[in-house]
């Protein structure tokens, strides 16, 4: 190992190169997520290819692309859930391991077994686990935070309900509450709108706006193009590579979407039509 990351006595992170003296490194509060030359492959087939990305603070970013474009994989790569073939990822200027308490994660709803014997409160409390020590148990303060998070997604009345007895939208809200309980600065959400009712969708959008207004950064995998334009400040068009990344109004153009989706989506023509209409 040539470079080693550690913490000095004062709590600031330092880097040690070639066993030299520890040097402080720049912790960038302004760049919550920075990705350089990221390549991820499953069974030698690349899923993500040479991703370079620098997400500014306090933005609501939508990750958009066709099926198999590597949207979920990108999030998983950042969270360290898949191994990287090349490149590096920094969260607030630090490796994920060091700054993971600042990251909140909302996985896809299908990724867990909803028959699992836990109730809503248990799931939301799990959001606090990352802040607890190895054998520490959630304290009263943690429970209060969990309760507040539930209140924010209007699920407090369901706190003692077993999670199987919730509707899809309610389940998604529970996941959201768990992410809120993580009290993070950077949130990753994997298709939070998949299979939820209209009311929940609105609630989620409102919540995202609120989080953004409080200076949090959100990256949200989204697959519905027409709504993507209204929901997000910035869009990341992804199809194995970064096709485009920038403010929504600049990125949401016919050519770029065409480049992202290829010619294969019928929905594309509808959207393009809408884009044209708005332009004229």
């Amino acid at each position, binding site marked *: 190992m040539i470079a080693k990351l550690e913490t000095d006595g004062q709590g600031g992170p330092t880097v040690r190169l070639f066993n030299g003296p520890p040097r402080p490194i720049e912790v960038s509060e302004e760049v919550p997520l920075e990705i350089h030359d990221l390549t991820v492959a499953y069974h*030698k*087939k690349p899923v993500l290819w040479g991703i370079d990305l620098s997400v500014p603070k306090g933005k609501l970013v939508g990750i958009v692309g066709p099926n198999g474009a590597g949207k979920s994989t990108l999030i998983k790569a950042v969270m360290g859930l898949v191994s990287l073939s090349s490149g590096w990822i920094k969260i607030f200027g630090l490796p994920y391991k060091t700054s993971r308490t600042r990251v909140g994660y909302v996985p896809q709803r299908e990724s867990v077994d909803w*028959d699992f014997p836990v109730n809503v409160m248990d799931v939301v409390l799990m959001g606090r686990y990352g802040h607890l020590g190895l054998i520490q148990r959630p304290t009263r303060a943690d429970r209060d935070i969990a309760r507040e998070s539930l209140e924010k997604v209007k699920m407090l009345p369901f706190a003692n309900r077993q999670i199987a007895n919730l509707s899809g939208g309610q389940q998604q809200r529970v996941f959201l509450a768990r992410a809120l309980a993580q009290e993070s600065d950077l949130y990753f959400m994997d298709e939070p709108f998949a299979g939820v009712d209209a009311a929940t969708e609105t609630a989620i959008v409102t919540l995202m706006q609120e989080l953004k207004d409080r200076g949090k950064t959100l990256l949200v995998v989204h697959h519905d193009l027409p709504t993507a334009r209204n929901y997000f400040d910035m869009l990341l068009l992804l*199809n*194995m590579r970064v*096709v485009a990344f920038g403010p929504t109004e600049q990125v949401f153009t016919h*050519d770029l979407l065409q*480049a*992202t989706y290829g010619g294969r989506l019928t929905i594309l023509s509808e959207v393009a039509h809408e884009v044209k209409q708005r332009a004229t």
Partner: protein
Amino acid sequence: MNDFIPHFDFQRVFLAPWTANNLESTAWIALMGFLVTAACGLVGNYLILRRMALVGDAISHSVLPGIAIAFLLSRSRSATAMFVGALAAGIVTTVIIEVIHHKTRVKQDSAIGIAFTTLFAIGVILVSLFAAKVDLDQECVLYGEIAFVPLGEFTSFAGIVLGPPSVVRMAIVTLATVLLIAVFYKELLVSSFDPGLAASLGINAVLVHYALMCWLSVVVVSAFEAVGAILVIAMLILPGATASLISQRLPVIMGLTVLHAALSSVLGIHLATWLECSTAAAMVIMASTLFGAAWIFSPTDGLLRRWLRKRLAEPAVEPTVQMPQNS
């Protein structure tokens, strides 16, 4: 320790079994081993395809109470009683699994675990309570008595002496298995691969499922005497798994399954002769060894092949799709 692993003597291990005195019994044992492995392996291929390998395990365990109860009720060891008992046990197991799985939130894996252990426990208790009456003992239940196959009266039909009754029975079952697969090849394939498509073609997937389970019980129960209730799972899965490492085409897999059966049965006899251990277990060990060989040396996807490809083809990652242009 020396008397634990007997000295390896080529003459004793490889030649003696096939010389005049032993030839007949060796041949019967090898034939029985081959028939059992081939029949089980052919049916097992469909279990593997349908991701039901462990349902096979469950059914092979639960035929025990079926046989025990059938013997107790009929007070005989007739083949009919045995098959009826096994069929009933197979259906009961399948039904229990379905009921637990569908009526509660217990998942299928737990349902399988609960169903077969319960039935097997009942079988073991019956066997240990009425060992004399059902003429089964715990060892036989565990790993069969394939070495005893050539002993006792031979079956004869129309004046012609055919062979030991269990071998004759197994041969009929194996032939029937081949025949059934040949006749219902299309139905089995479609319903295993795509139940939705099967339904649209008018194939009753539930019926195919139950029929497969019933036939599985028949195969398992005829193999029971030779390999017991637990090693059957090896015969069901290993040939098909080995074959599917080498080929991806079902007809080829079927052929390789039969080849695997023949090899593991003969090699198993030699291993058992050398180590002086249970013949059925030795056959399974050889079957596993063959699987290991296929795993490492398979021309399409073997470990060695993978390793070589990794060594030769750097960099490992190559874009395989035309990239959209960055703009």
